[in-house]
């Protein structure tokens, strides 16, 4: 990052630390993976201990989009609308192999992976993935958030 100095890098990593441990997620739940999402969010496997437990049911208030389950072509415009409504910085996790690549459904009705519609940060395969895998994916996202350049200055967009 241009103009970075000791202070800005320390600030960046502090900001990254703050961002990664306070993720508000929007669960875009469609299908079977929703059951494993419920298991991950609940007491046994507890996503809240990683700071990502608070669900915001409005995309305008969320910074992490969990796309859980199969996205069909009929649902794709809704997914795009939800993604567009989120504010920067935002991340997307593709939860389940149907969101990653269409899964076992390769036919006229299914989008073959949500990265054909929106950019994805972490892919969690599995049909459905075990809650431990989901937590592993979340930890990888947290590493990514910590390491990425933090865009915190308002830039005049021309």
């Amino acid at each position, binding site marked *: 990052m241009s103009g970075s100095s000791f202070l800005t890098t320390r600030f960046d990593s502090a900001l990254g630390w703050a961002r990664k441990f306070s993720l508000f997620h929007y669960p875009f739940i469609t299908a079977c993976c929703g059951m494993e999402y419920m298991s991950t969010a609940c007491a046994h496997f507890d996503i809240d201990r990683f700071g990502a437990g608070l669900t915001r049911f409005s995309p305008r208030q969320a910074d992490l989009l969990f796309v859980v389950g199969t996205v069909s072509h009929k*649902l794709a415009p809704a997914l795009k609308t939800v993604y567009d409504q989120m504010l920067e910085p935002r991340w997307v996790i593709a939860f389940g192999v149907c969101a990653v690549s269409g899964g076992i459904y390769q036919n006229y009705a299914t989008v073959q992976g949500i990265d054909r519609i929106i950019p994805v940060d972490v892919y969690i395969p599995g049909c459905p993935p075990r809650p431990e895998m989901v937590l592993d994916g979340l930890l990888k996202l947290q590493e990514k958030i910590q390491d990425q350049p933090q865009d915190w200055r308002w830039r005049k967009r021309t």
Partner: protein
Amino acid sequence: MGTDLEKNARPDTMLINMGPSHPAMHGTFRIMLELEGEKILNAEVEIGYLHRGFEKTCENKTYFNLLPYTDRLNYVSPQINNLGYAMTVEKMLGLQVPERAQQIRVLMSELSRVSDHLTCLAAMAMENGAFTVFLYMMKAREFLWDVIEFTTGSRMTTSYIRIGGVRADLHEGWRESVKTAVRETRSVLKDVHGLLDRNQIFLNRTRGIGAMSKEDALSYGWTGPCLRSTGVRYDVRKAHPYLLYDRLEFDVPLGECGDNYDRYSVRMREMEQSLRIIEQVAGLIRDSEPQVTAEGMEPTEAVRMGRLQNPRQRIRLSPNLEGSEKEVYPRILADEPSVVVPPKEDTYTTMEGLISHFLFFMKGSGIRPPKGDVYFSVEGGNGEVGFYIVSDGTDRPYRLHLRAPCFHILAALETLIRGRFVADVVPTFGSMNMIGGELDR
């Protein structure tokens, strides 16, 4: 995509869209509401957001290959879908399944049914604000899923119930895990009864709301707990008994007026009955000798020796195949070489086993039911799950249709919420237990 309400929008009313992505944990569908203040004048339900082409896919897969697709239909009680499909094909083939496999199937079905009702009520309670109930019921569900996982290898979508029987025998120590699961579920149900049964807020939101009469329910083709909440005694397990249900004792709880509270109450009592069935079946299943899979020769060694002659020694199979060793086979799968996968030991060492394995999986052969059509149904978590299969004698179904119970239940949603308030949509929809995979197929 415009709904009719949007196209004919009036200037004096408000249109609110409860869109395909919504906080309700059931499934993805859309309700367009025309409101005057808080009162709903008109409602339009739009489904199909999880249409994944199940029926078209099944026409292109063999009977064995399409088993995982059936898991993902009603994904909160996946084994019941597996069971419905397997029994439909077995009806076409005229196949008899061993007794132990039937007992295990009943056990798995009832575990799935309890897990279905737990999920439905947990989500319904959470949407009405009772978050604690959601956490408690998910805790109970984990114990049930533990039992399923130790036997089948997967927590949810198992593909365990196969055509001809089940994939593997119950795991060692299954009695303990079943006992723990039943005990924990009972304690959670007791807690939830205390939290919700006479809770004034819950009663205000569910009593008298979403009431359905018997005649209307039958005209809509409602089945399952929603129909029984209106007072009609119809349960596929009692009306057309399959597996061992005619030999087991259980009651069929009924409701009175078919409102949301009755649907909740019927599901709670059905869970208790299912736990009763689980205990009875656990008493029927005999203990078997534990299979020691850690000893024996390596499969590659066995194949190499098998080229000359059958080594006739124990083979150490992969841990994934635990429970489906050759000694266990007669207990869990029917003795029909063309319909079930031959045991791995035979495949590795004998010519006949290898040929049966090859013929089972080869394109064009395998399970080929005779020409004709058949309909068979089982009691799912939502009602009568029916499979209609048309076979043309080849290894792929010509047409496979699922009779989805929540399709018919949801057809009544528009009439149930018309004239009520916006806040009434949530408990009504929650008590109907709409599962997207089943609704849209």
